[in-house]
């Protein structure tokens, strides 16, 4: 693809902290290379702001290779921008052309309060994991990899669910700010494996209870989460979570502690 440069207008959400109201600020960036990633374009803007003696824009980022899930940006109405199954860091500027205006917002959900500018607090996800997204095992020597036979299909489906990086795009994209895709992936990856079976019922009940406590909405099965998920987590996981939940309820299982 032909290399080119562009000048852009950016409308970016600025918010001092979680208490104060935020607002959009407009910035101009010049000579942005089509080879840059979206976050590199932000680096250019921030260096420009620092040189001007202004405060740079706070945004989350870490690995910049599409696996950590930190780069939460809602770009022109799309979680992680317009590219299918792509995180913000892997979105490249060749998507845009000279003169474009790009609106960048933080994930918006009451359960994900804005800490500063584009940085949101996603520890609600951590608390959901703490409620049951684990298996209780005695530590000791590592068990032989093939000691427990698991059929290929279950292993594959579990692996696909485990691809979830907990970025929160599902919550950001959902009109109800529901965390069902995330929770369903975390429940599925364990429920499909033998090691996860002993705790599967209390796990489903506990994680759903914590999800509700954090203030996420109900799933209305519209599928925006699946469409925006950078890791292609399927809605079939939500059906599985519903099955796990129904199974736990009708067998009379209890939440733990």
């Amino acid at each position: 693809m032909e290399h080119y440069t562009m000048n852009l207008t950016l409308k970016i959400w600025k918010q001092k902290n979680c208490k104060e109201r935020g607002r959009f600020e407009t910035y101009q960036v010049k000579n942005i290379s089509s080879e840059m990633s979206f976050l590199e374009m932000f680096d250019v803007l921030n260096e420009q702001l620092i040189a001007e003696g202004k405060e740079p824009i706070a945004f989350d980022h870490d690995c910049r290779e599409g696996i950590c899930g930190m780069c939460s940006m809602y770009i022109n109405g799309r979680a992680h921008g317009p590219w299918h199954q792509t995180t913000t860091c892997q979105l490249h500027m060749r998507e845009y052309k000279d003169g474009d205006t790009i609106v960048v917002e933080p994930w918006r959900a009451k359960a994900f309060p804005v800490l500063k500018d584009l940085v949101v607090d996603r520890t609600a996800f951590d608390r959901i994991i703490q409620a049951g997204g684990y298996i209780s095992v005695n530590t000791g020597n590592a068990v032989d990899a093939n000691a427990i036979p698991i059929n290929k299909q279950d292993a594959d489906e579990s692996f696909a669910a485990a691809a979830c990086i907990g970025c929160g795009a599902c919550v950001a994209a959902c009109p109800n700010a529901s965390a069902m895709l995330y929770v369903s992936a975390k429940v599925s990856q364990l429920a499909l494996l033998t090691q996860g079976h002993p705790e599967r019922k209390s796990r489903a009940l506990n994680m759903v209870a914590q999800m509700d406590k954090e203030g996420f909405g109900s799933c209305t099965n519209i599928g925006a989460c699946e469409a925006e998920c950078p890791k292609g987590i399927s809605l079939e996981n939500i059906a599985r979570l519903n099955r796990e939940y129904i199974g736990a309820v009708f067998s009379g299982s209890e939440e733990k502690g």
Partner: protein
Amino acid sequence: MNWKHYFTTSIGKKLVMGFTGLFLIVFLVVHCYLNSMIFVSREAFNAAADFMATCVAMRILEVGLFAGIFLHIIQGFMLVRKNASTRGERYAVSAGNKTSAWYSRSMGLLGTLIFLFLILHINHFWVPSRITGGLNPTEVHGVEMHDLYQKMIDIFQTPWVVAVYLLGVFSLAWHLIHGFYSAFQTMGLTMPKYKALIRIVGIIFSIVICLLFALMPVSMFMGWVS
């Protein structure tokens, strides 16, 4: 933990919507089948309507039907209200139809339109048939009964009434296209093996049922049946 607790979690609330929704779908099949008797004959329709009005089992099911409708409406309203409160600050730019279908996002609005239509609809037929009376008597095979057929003909002579009915049925079709599939998804029954089948059956069901319903006021207005 008790039963109440199970049905008030975010998934539990949706299960109530799914169960009542499927119950209402079964009702629609019965309702549509019996009403289609107008295309057979005046007597066939009146006899069918009389069966529904006089059979004890049907009257008991009718109480269940009203309970189901109210539960579906109230729970739906509460869910819409709760879900509208989870966003906080709204997005300046939204994805719109790029990531989801408009009718899937508009279940609350479509449901409200259907509810408004239902008030008119129940007032047109159920109230005079069951409560206030005042319908012309007719006789089918020696049994005296209400002439609901004539009532339908009379009601569907007014253009705006026909228009409101068509709007109600139109809303119902979109509501069902999402609702049919969504009920199965909430119950966890959309395994890969059945997912496509449920989707297709849901869409065909919604279109066929609603076309039949739409055909009823139109046929009577246009004088295709008399």
